[in-house]
């Protein structure tokens, strides 16, 4: 199995493991407007650096009260900086990837994308259950 497939597999297994955490965060995210969640997904999917995603969350949390309301922003930041950082280290150890390489950085980004995809899905689901959620134009 080549390295990319091994990484994708490890990330998928880890993503299953943090599904419950993503669900909780997705429910907390319902205080945030849909356009903000779409923006977060876009940022995570296009980022080349982990710090780009972290800075994005910090700036949104600082500027928009709804990101702080149920501690969505601070808890998301903490989860990425602590839990996902550890998961990245574990994957790198299992697959013998040096910690200071671009591959290790990519593993971290893949974990973040998986988490945010799950959060966005839970956000949609919870918003619908609660009666339609925020309008997409409420940017």
């Amino acid at each position, binding site marked *: 199995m080549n390295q990319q497939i091994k990484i994708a597999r490890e990330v998928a297994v880890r993503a299953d493991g943090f599904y419950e955490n993503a669900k909780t965060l997705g429910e907390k995210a319902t205080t945030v407007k849909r356009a903000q969640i779409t923006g977060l997904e876009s940022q995570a999917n296009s980022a080349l650096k982990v*710090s780009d995603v972290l800075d994005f969350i910090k700036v949104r949390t600082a500027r928009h009260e709804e990101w*702080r309301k149920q501690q969505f922003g601070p808890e998301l930041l903490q989860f990425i900086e602590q839990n996902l950082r550890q998961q990245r280290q574990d994957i790198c150890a299992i697959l013998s990837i040096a910690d200071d390489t671009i591959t290790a950085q990519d593993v971290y980004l893949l974990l973040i994308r998986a988490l945010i995809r799950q959060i966005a899905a839970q956000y949609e689901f919870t918003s619908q259950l609660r009666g339609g959620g925020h309008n997409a134009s409420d940017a």
Partner: protein
Amino acid sequence: MQATREQLEQMRLLSDRELYAQAQTFLQSYKPPENKQLAGLLEFSRNMNDLQSFAKHQQSRDWGNKSKEHYKAFYSELNKYLQKLRQQVETPPYSLVTQGLTAKAKKDQVEFFAGWLAREFIQHLVAQAQIMIAEEENQRQAGTRRTHA
């Protein structure tokens, strides 16, 4: 100038591994100025010379108001940091400048990489500072609510 693929990867890693942590450490020692000042920093960070001129100017200003006393120390330290950054691009862990260049080509690379690193550092610094200011404001409002309760 055009960075090589290796240099781009090195910059990505440096931003995440070095500059992000340095911005957080910086703010543990130096209280940030208000959001308007941070917006100015972001704006000027597009160009290293403009950024340094801005930081020097803000350092030399008479901030008068007691609530802004810490601005001087913040900008003074930022100036020192930016000067150091210019020197560091050639040495580990940065080592971004290609070996064996002419003096002019080397100067161009130093300018390019120092500017890029400074922009990344300011982006991390401003994001962290903004969240710190918002948290402080939240705590202040919670304190006011408790006092009135």
